[in-house]
């Protein structure tokens, strides 16, 4: 069976559940209040009756049945709160405001009519009972109230019954019951109403969230939840959802951007390769070069392209790492610098450059060693490539006063004009005077990406100035935080 939609809603269901639990708890409390009140009233009545009885029996003991009789008459006429009945030993009435009711015995038919008083099956001694009696209330209506009484046999054989009208207690209890029922009804009504309102509110809020989720599912990443600043958890959820969507949209944009960039980045090397292959084919056809040479040329072009591709991928991967170093290890930046100096020194000297290194040791960093080596290699390679013979290249590794670790490569080449320094780290940017040199234009972009992934930065400055007819030179600093000890 399908429930009405309201019943399938979580808030409404919860409301119902809580109402049921509440009603059960309220019933228990009401029942307790009822029974406790009833028991209390009974106990009070019992004590009162007992006291009155003991007063009357004392009167009988000291002054005799006539005085008792007189006292009872007096009490009845003064409308005492008690009911009385004084009977002879045979059960006939002497005095009192209760009448002796003739009753056929409840038990066997031939037993003598012992039940002559309101107390049924009186067997002598002190016997308590509740019974109903007929009375007229203040308005003159006949009512049958309940009474609690005790019957005792007096020393002369007479029987005395003292009772208290429980009508007031009864009325009180019935009013109490009524009030309790009414309260319960109100609670249920208000609860159901509140649940409805609550469930409608929650549903409305959930509806807002759901609409956004559906919109996003259908591809609209710009959909956002309307946040009402009420500070409740649904608002919080909405704000969280919005933040998540913002992040998602940003990464989608950056992925798309990276994709576009890769496609764009590869177009020019592919175009270059195609052109070179075409030239090689023409040359081979014209017999200027042989087929093997042409193929070798193609292979090296393909290798270049692969290299470019790998670099573009590496940059994208580093940028996606968003400040988190991939596969970090702890090592001494000084020993890395020393290795790089040792590796590149012969190449620099072969070109007629003076190569020097000033390296501090104990520069512990937590970094990706291959990537950092690659970054240093790119910068050193650039320095060697762009510094004319007779110049100098210097590699330095030191701890800055801020505690950061700095690699710096200073050359005496033409340098990079101030205005171009930000630009050269962008992908495929090659300054005019470098176009004749081999290279992809990705070297410094990779360096920047590596440093960014390490929470560091690249800083380009002017070199030492005029040197051997060239200048002002370039100083590239790779700055990254030291490892936490």
């Amino acid at each position, binding site marked *: 069976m399908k429930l009405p939609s309201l019943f399938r809603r979580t808030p409404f269901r919860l409301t119902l559940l809580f109402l049921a639990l509440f009603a059960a708890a309220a019933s228990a409390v009401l029942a307790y209040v009822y029974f406790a009140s009833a028991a209390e009233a009974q106990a009070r009545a019992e004590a009162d009756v007992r006291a009155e009885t003991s007063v009357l029996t004392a009167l009988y003991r000291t002054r005799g049945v006539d005085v008792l009789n007189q006292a009872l008459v007096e009490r009845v006429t003064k409308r005492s709160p008690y009911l009385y009945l004084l009977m002879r030993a045979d059960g006939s009435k002497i005095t009192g405001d209760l009448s002796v009711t003739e009753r056929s015995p409840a038990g066997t038919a031939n037993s003598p009519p012992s039940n002559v008083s309101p107390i049924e099956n009186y067997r002598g001694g002190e016997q308590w009972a509740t019974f109903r009696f007929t009375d007229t209330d203040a308005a003159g209506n006949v009512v049958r109230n309940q009474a609690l009484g005790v019957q005792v046999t007096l020393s002369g054989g007479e029987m005395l019954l003292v009772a208290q009208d429980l009508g007031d207690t009864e009325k009180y209890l019935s009013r109490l019951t009524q009030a309790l029922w009414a309260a319960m009804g109100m609670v249920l009504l208000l609860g159901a109403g509140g649940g409805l309102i609550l469930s409608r509110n929650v549903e409305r809020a959930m509806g807002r969230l759901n609409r956004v989720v559906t919109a996003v599912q259908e591809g609209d990443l710009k959909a956002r939840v309307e946040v009402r600043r009420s500070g409740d958890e649904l608002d919080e959820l909405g704000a969280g959802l919005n933040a998540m969507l913002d992040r998602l949209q940003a990464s989608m944009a950056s992925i798309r951007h990276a994709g576009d960039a890769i496609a764009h980045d590869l177009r020019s090397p592919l175009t270059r390769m195609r052109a070179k292959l075409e030239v090689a084919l023409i040359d081979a056809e014209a017999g200027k070069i042989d087929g093997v040479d042409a193929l*070798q040329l193609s*292979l090296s072009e393909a*290798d270049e392209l*692969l*290299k470019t591709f*790998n670099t573009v991928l590496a940059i994208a991967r580093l940028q996606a790492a968003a400040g988190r170093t*991939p*596969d970090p290890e702890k090592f001494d930046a000084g020993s890395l610098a020393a*290795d790089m100096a*040792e*590796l*590149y020194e*012969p*190449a620099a000297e*072969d070109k007629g450059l003076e190569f020097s290194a000033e390296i501090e040791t104990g520069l512990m960093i937590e970094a*990706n*060693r*291959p*990537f950092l*080596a*690659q970054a240093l*290699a*790119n910068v050193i*390679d650039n320095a*060697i*490539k762009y510094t004319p013979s007779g110049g100098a290249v210097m590699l330095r590794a030191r701890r800055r006063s801020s505690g950061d670790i700095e690699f710096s490569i200073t050359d005496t080449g033409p340098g990079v004009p101030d205005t171009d320094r930000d630009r050269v780290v962008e992908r495929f940017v090659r300054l005019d005077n470098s176009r004749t040199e081999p290279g992809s234009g990705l*070297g410094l972009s990779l360096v920047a990406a590596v440093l960014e992934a390490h929470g560091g930065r690249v800083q380009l400055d002017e070199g030492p100035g005029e040197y051997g007819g060239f200048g002002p030179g370039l100083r590239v600093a790779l700055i990254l935080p030291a490892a936490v000890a």
Partner: protein
Amino acid sequence: MRILVVEDDAEAATAMVRGLTEAGNDVVHAVDGAFGLLEAQKGGYDVYVVDRMMPRLDGIGMVETLRKDGDQTPVLFLSAMGEVEDRIVGLKAGGDDYLVKPYAFAELIARVDALARRRETGGVQTVLKVGDLEMNLIARTVHRGETEIDLQPREFQLLEFLMRHAGQSVTRTMLLEKVWEYHFDPQTNVIDVHISRLRAKIDKGFDRAMLQTVRGAGYRLEP
């Protein structure tokens, strides 16, 4: 040499088998890790060339199983995954070398050669001899004939590697990886400069050049 190629990409496998066969090897091809494992268990191979990503049983699983069985045949992993952690995983699983796709044939053949020959020169050597070139690993001295050759520490390491792989082509990348222990692209051929310095020391003034350049591959030290 008997080489087992385990590679699921048919085209890549065909090219590899052809290249390795033409280099004078006896090559068997298995199409995935499970077949590779069966074939390897038959024994008699000098080198396993294993692709990392394969259906059924991948390269890592296959090599781990072989190593557990006590098979110490050298393994060259091929993988499109070239990150540092991938390399570490491969070497930890029992690989001896790791080559990232795409690779040049010369590189593959040189590395397979290096792995296969490594086994032959087992045992701790104190003196390496190639032709009239002699290297004392304890005294750290090098002689060619009667002439003592003075080498820088790195040149010594470079020559040691070349001597251990005498007669085989070694690529520039191999030298950077094995002698300098770095995995990166040095842009210009810095290795060439180091080689030419070494060459100047061991070949200059002798009638025969031992340190040869192998076109399209790298270098070879000829006895």
